[in-house]
């Protein structure tokens, strides 16, 4: 039976570093919850405290009805799929999987059945007698999964389990994990730094930054209604245009270039912020040779690179001030602009959000995150 997990005002410090700072989080029974954040955000520490490998300084952790704040790992009804898999090198695959049931004094016959079923579930039964170092990374990952699931824990913790796999295998495992979670009706707590992965798999995502939870919500909520510039930039790709809020109209930003940008969403704290940003996603930006007159937001720029993404093209524009912006445009339609041309990028007010600029500087540079732009850099 799946259980819910409740973290209540949990704090953990190492020396004077606040790894986890007053975090409260409620994971529903049967829910797929991702904890998303860049490295050092505190997501792994949260997972370790739920697993029992770290003890919180303050706060409580409850699994189901049980307070497990200080319970050792072997007295918790949770199991973990570790980042490095942590398969015991001196045991075979079958022995690894049998390790858990054995600690519960399950009879050998019963154990054998359980091991067989668990390995069958991850389609590795034929490798039962191999040693872990004879398996590929993907296979090791499945063994780790079988080993954690064989005990039918009420909560499964996954610590970046797909990080070491190549792209294709990772996508395949994402689907499998999701299906497995549905079938077994388990609570999954999934820690990752990969926003695509989190969007693809989760019922809800908790975005962490500096040991705090920045926002919790469904993938759609986080994508469409990010509460802060950090979340807006972390989930998907985003153009940020820096400036200050118009003192006469809080729904307008006066960009550093002088352009006035209108927005339909003003995030909390944006109106009073010293510096603000307007955010628009590349896929909402259109390009034209003439300046549009329908009142939409516009910025002029020169195209420096075009990246082919398959169904769409990604343009990298540079303004006169030297800012770079992205526009992702479908490949059909009007005459498409080419490298070197001067164009207007424009987008409707409804696709614009205003945020306080606080927290943006912490983000990895946008171009490092964005695959298309990365390719363009490499090509240039």
């Amino acid at each position, binding site marked *: 039976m799946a259980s819910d997990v409740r973290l209540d005002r949990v704090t953990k410090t190492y020396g004077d570093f606040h790894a986890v700072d007053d975090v409260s989080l409620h994971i529903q029974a049967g829910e797929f919850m991702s904890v998303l954040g860049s490295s050092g955000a505190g997501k792994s520490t949260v997972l370790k405290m739920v697993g029992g490998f770290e003890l919180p300084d303050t706060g409580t952790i409850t699994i189901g009805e049980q307070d497990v704040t200080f319970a050792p790992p072997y007295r918790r009804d949770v199991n973990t799929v570790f980042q490095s898999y942590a398969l*015991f090198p001196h045991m075979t695959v079958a022995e690894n999987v049998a390790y858990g049931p054995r600690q519960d004094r399950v009879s050998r016959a019963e154990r054998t059945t359980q091991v067989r079923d668990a390995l069958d579930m991850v389609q590795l039964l034929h490798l039962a007698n191999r040693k872990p170092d004879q398996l590929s990374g993907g296979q090791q990952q499945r063994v780790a999964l079988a080993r954690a699931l064989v005990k039918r824990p009420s909560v499964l913790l996954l610590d970046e389990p797909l990080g070491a796999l190549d792209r294709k295998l990772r996508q395949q495992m994402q689907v499998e994990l999701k299906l497995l979670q549905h079938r077994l009706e388990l609570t999954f707590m999934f820690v990752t730094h990969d926003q695509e992965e989190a969007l693809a798999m989760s019922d809800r995502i908790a975005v962490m930054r500096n040991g705090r939870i920045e926002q919790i919500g469904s993938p759609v909520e986080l994508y469409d209604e990010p509460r802060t510039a950090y979340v807006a930039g972390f989930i998907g790709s985003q153009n940020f245009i820096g400036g200050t809020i118009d003192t006469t109209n809080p729904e307008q930003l006066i960009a550093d270039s002088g352009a006035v940008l209108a927005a339909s969403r003003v995030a909390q704290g944006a109106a009073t912020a010293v510096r603000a940003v307007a955010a628009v996603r590349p896929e909402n930006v259109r390009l034209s040779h003439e300046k549009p007159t329908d009142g939409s937001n516009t910025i002029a720029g020169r195209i420096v690179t075009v990246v082919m993404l398959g169904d769409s093209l990604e343009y990298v524009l540079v303004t006169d001030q030297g800012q770079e912006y992205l526009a992702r445009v479908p490949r059909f339609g009007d005459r498409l602009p080419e490298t070197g041309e001067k164009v207007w990028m424009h987008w409707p007010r409804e696709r614009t959000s205003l945020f306080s600029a606080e927290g943006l500087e912490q983000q990895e540079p946008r171009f490092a995150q964005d695959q298309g732009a990365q390719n363009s850099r490499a090509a240039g």
Partner: protein
Amino acid sequence: MRIRIPRFSMAIPAMAWWAAFFIAPLGAIIYFSFGIKPSDPGAGVVDLTSLSFSNYIAATSEVYLTVFQITMRTAGLGTLACALVGFPVAYVLARHITTRWQPILLFLLVLPFWISFLLRTFAWRIILAPEGVLSHALQDIGLLSGPLSMLDTNSAVQLGIIYNYLPLMVLPMFVALDKIDPALIRGSMDLGAGPVRTFLSITLPLALPGILGGMVLTFILASGDYVVPAILGGAKGLMIGNLVATQILAAQNLPMGSAMAVILILMICGIVLSMLMLLMAFRWLLRTIAGPAVDARALSVAVAAETRERT
């Protein structure tokens, strides 16, 4: 154009050096051990005209055999004690010490190595002296009725051996424990095993080769030791090293000393081999106590069926 030079060319000088000054002397020992000491002192150190086993027969006479036996016992017990005393230290260093303190403590651990072996041994003469501070202290608190009489006995040698080789034993054990990924320990606990079961089923099996390596090293060094028994053992705490030294340096009986050295090497080989067998036995014991993880036959039927289906 390139001249092909063998891949080991850069190692040739080292090999030649060892061949000339290690392998050849080793051969000389074996050769000499079959000779006899010439009765005429002017005829050199060894008479190799008629080779025989006479030295070996003499060296395995009861008197010598007793010393061999004491040597093996002292070295063996010392090794065991070093392992038992040192293991918790290695364990703490690998598990419970932060990365900031670890190098400092490791440095402290090997620091005694950098201080004269003689000095360290000789210090125990001061500590254990019958008229020394420790002796007086023990008498004052009533643990001893007379002066401490440990010096110049086998127990003093035993203590000196444990003291001198303890850091040497801790280091390989530390390396072995440190190499174990902490995630494996977490994994074991996560799957429901408590600290004791985790130790027995994960930590110990994975650290065993390192522990054994340290024990072999310690045993070899301890059994060939000369300094500790010479300084702490007196006449009652003799080890084979002293006997060999006496034969060669005092009695000038090179063939006899050589034979004893050969016997020492053979004994060490024998004991190291039996230690390896002990390791196997220990592993087997650990596994047997735990019992098989799964019903191998039932599982292999399923595995075979699955494999057939796949091909």
